[in-house]
């Protein structure tokens, strides 16, 4: 098992090399000149040139690439021009914020979507089936920034139930000592319930926004997979053997329907991590999405490259985790066979 995981990780290296090359070229192909941007509108031609030399942008592309790879191999992901901080530090402090938000949204979506999909599949044509279809349609057709703004408008501005949508924690509370970087967990680790409740309150609206968006594919996939499995021959065998309806539904049908649901889950998860930029913007969430978009606007190469590389690494681990989970559910898919 361990050897297989290692083999899989080694197999991901060519992908990572590809990602490094492509992001390097893509950032260079972007319009805009970082040197001119940082010299500002008042910057003279000499000043721009000076910055360019300082950044090494006057060198040829292959030279720049070699320097970039050399730095990477030393664990140096470069510095952000905008903040002056090392990109690695910026990303590692921001990644937990994004992960916490994404995971909460995902868990929320799973908790709602899977029961909904199962109910819809066991009662096709019923009101719950129509509800499932309605939620699915609404979920995919409403863009996240719109639902985010709508939720903030209703629950913060009109009703005043939610705290102001500004970041991960109320400014009067101090963030818990960093262990995992997840405020919900870190606050519990030090037993600070106030901070836990505060962080949860800030988290609810953006997490619901994300959940609404991924609810749709999850509920639809659960429903479709369950419908397919429920009409399978082995379900008839189980029913003919007189097994309890709950055993048939969960032990027999749902476990078999889990594979496509897990595939969808992996897809929406990786999709969310990168694309919750808009939600992070709406709720002033200090995550990597908003960080990357700011860097992109400023033609700030190092953070963009760092962001893409981080995402690539996450994808590799995510796919590995999903493959291992497949094997746990389906013996035909055990990866060490």
């Amino acid at each position: 098992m361990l050897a297989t995981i290692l083999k899989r990780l080694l197999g991901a290296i060519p992908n990572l090399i590809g990602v490094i090359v492509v992001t390097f070229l893509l950032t260079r192909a972007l319009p805009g000149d970082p040197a001119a941007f940082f010299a500002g509108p008042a910057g003279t031609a000499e000043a721009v040139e000076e910055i360019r030399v300082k950044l090494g942008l006057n060198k040829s592309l292959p030279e720049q690439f070699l320097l970039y790879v050399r730095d990477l191999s030393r664990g140096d992901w470069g510095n952000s021009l905008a903040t002056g901080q090392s990109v690695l530090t910026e990303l590692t402090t921001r990644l937990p914020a994004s992960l916490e938000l994404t995971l909460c949204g995902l868990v929320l979506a799973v908790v709602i979507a899977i029961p909904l999909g199962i109910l819809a599949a066991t009662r096709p044509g019923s009101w719950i089936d129509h509800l499932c279809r309605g939620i699915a349609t609404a979920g995919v057709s409403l863009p996240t920034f719109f639902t985010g703004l709508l939720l903030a408008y209703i629950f913060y501005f009109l009703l005043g139930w939610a705290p102001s949508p500004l970041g991960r924690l109320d400014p009067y509370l101090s963030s818990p000592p960093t262990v995992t970087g997840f405020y919900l967990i870190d606050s519990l680790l030090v037993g600070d319930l106030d901070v836990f409740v505060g962080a949860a309150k800030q988290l609810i609206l953006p997490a619901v926004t994300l959940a609404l968006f991924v609810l749709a594919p999850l509920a639809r996939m659960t429903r479709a997979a369950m419908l397919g499995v429920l009409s399978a021959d082995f379900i008839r065998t189980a029913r003919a053997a007189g097994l309890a309806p709950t055993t048939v539904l969960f032990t027999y049908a749902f476990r078999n329907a889990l594979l496509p649901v897990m595939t969808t889950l992996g897809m929406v998860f990786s999709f969310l991590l990168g694309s919750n930029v808009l939600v992070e913007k709406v709720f002033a969430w200090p995550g990597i999405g908003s960080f990357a978009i700011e860097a992109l606007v400023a033609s700030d190469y190092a953070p963009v490259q760092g962001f893409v590389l981080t995402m690539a690494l996450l994808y590799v681990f995510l796919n590995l985790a999903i493959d291992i989970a497949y094997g746990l559910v389906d013996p035909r898919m055990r990866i060490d066979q």
Partner: protein
Amino acid sequence: MSLLAVENLSLEFRTRSGIVRALENVSLELPEGGSLGLVGESGSGKSVLSFAILGIQDAAARITAGRIRFAGQDLLANEGRAMKALRGRELAMIFQNPRVALNPIRQVGQQIEDVLRRHTDLRGKTLRARAIECLAEVRIPDPERRYAAYPFELSGGMCQRVMIAIALACRPRLLIADEPTTGLDVTTQAAIMRLIRDLGHEKGMATLLITHDLGLAREFCDKLAVMHAGHIVETGPTEAVFRTPAHPYAAQLTRATPVGQDRLENLAAIPGNLPDLRRTDLPACRFAERCERRADDCAIPLPRYEVGAGHTAFCHHPTRLEAA
């Protein structure tokens, strides 16, 4: 008294394109420990009937008339609650295509345990021991090791043995075998049929064999019921039906079955197809439109024609006279 008695059962499917009258006025009887072969071409309603007996028919199916009695109990009473209590314990069923009829991601031993746990008080080690015993009973070699196998690791014949083990785990009094050898190769077919017969004899279990293979039914069953388009057209002791078939359909079906040295050119195909069961103008005899002996009175309700002892056909113009 018979173990299983289906009395004037009618069943229809409500579909978007109309009502399908899948079973009409079907009656059959199976004594304790007996074996009955339900034969007919695909689509004649054999499987629908067996699903109805177990109460696992499609949600769109509705039983519109008749009764199903098992050991004196009315299985349809209380919205089928009587049936639910017996299903898997007193009545069991095995299916065709055994490789897809088992849960693909559950160890076969666990699938047997699921049934035992549901119907018995066995738990823990004794449960596992009994599951292994069930595997041994269906002559699966090395049952301790096979307990942990998944269906995809077993051959089709082995999977069918596992399914039989699941069906027989609680020692049912009736086994319904729906085309149990379809999807298996010929040598495995013979072994599976022998196994079903031997276990039936050992445990005094009645068997309802559903098949389109008349040769198989002849070898295996004491009695036959011939189905056509949702009707039982003829029923009687196997040899009597084969020797003196009275209904034209049964007669043609027996002629279409190879026996011994028959050559292909001597086998007769039955012309035409099953009628569309959604039609509202179906004649009383649903075979009439394919029948060479058709007459005007075939449109009026069918008479019961007693061919011999326990041998009955439903036809206005039975072929009795020429047959012998």
